[in-house]
């Protein structure tokens, strides 16, 4: 996209105001190419991005910046989550409901 999207980080600001991500196990459903997940990747203890689109997930992974905390990316749909019960503190539906 050629636009400057949310350059002041309003989306992350509002998410941070609403819930504490630091030290939590977080799942983002509908992570797409990882634009949003990259903004907060260092905060959670464990972060997983999930999306049905494989090419988006490749882009998400290749665009990651160096960090000691890197998110995992998984191809799946929200209706069938490949995780055991009680395994996340926070689930974010990112434009995916």
């Amino acid at each position, binding site marked *: 996209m*050629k636009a400057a999207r949310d*350059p002041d980080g309003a989306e992350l600001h*509002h998410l941070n105001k609403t819930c504490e991500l630091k030290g939590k196990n977080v799942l983002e459903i509908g992570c797409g190419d990882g634009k949003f997940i990259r903004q907060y990747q260092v905060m959670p203890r464990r972060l997983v991005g999930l999306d049905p689109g494989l090419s988006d997930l490749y882009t998400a992974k290749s665009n990651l910046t160096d960090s000691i905390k890197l998110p995992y990316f998984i191809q799946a749909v929200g*209706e069938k989550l490949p995780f055991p019960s009680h395994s996340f503190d926070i689930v974010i539906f990112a434009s995916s409901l």
Partner: protein
Amino acid sequence: MVHALNEAHRILIPQGIMIDLRPLSVDVPLEIIYQGGGESAGMIDMSPDIELDRAADRAIETVSVEQVFRESWVESFDFPYYWKTFRDMKADLKEYWMTDVIVPDEVLQRARILFRKRRPQTQILVRVQMKLGKYEKQKKVIVG
């Protein structure tokens, strides 16, 4: 959507939080901004996705009524997109928003006129309205 919300309920810990973060199908102005001011060229029609929006709202309502999740916070906020040229904006509209929004021709024409006034630091701005809802996991689970 309700299935996805029930799956989210399953994988959340007992005190878990579900966040619904998405753009709303609310018409917004196409603005030309510049150093010291800004003007609206008219409204962008965001209605093409309104049925998806309503379906998501209905799914949230269903899981709230069934006590799968309890709403604890809902707000809306601006998610801005800035373009420095008309060409860039039209390219993005074509590639990413073609099925999501309708920009009437008269709005585009007026925006072009305002843009060509060449005031300092002129940019095109669209502030999409976003919803952020926070929902707490409840004990009850929908069966079936």
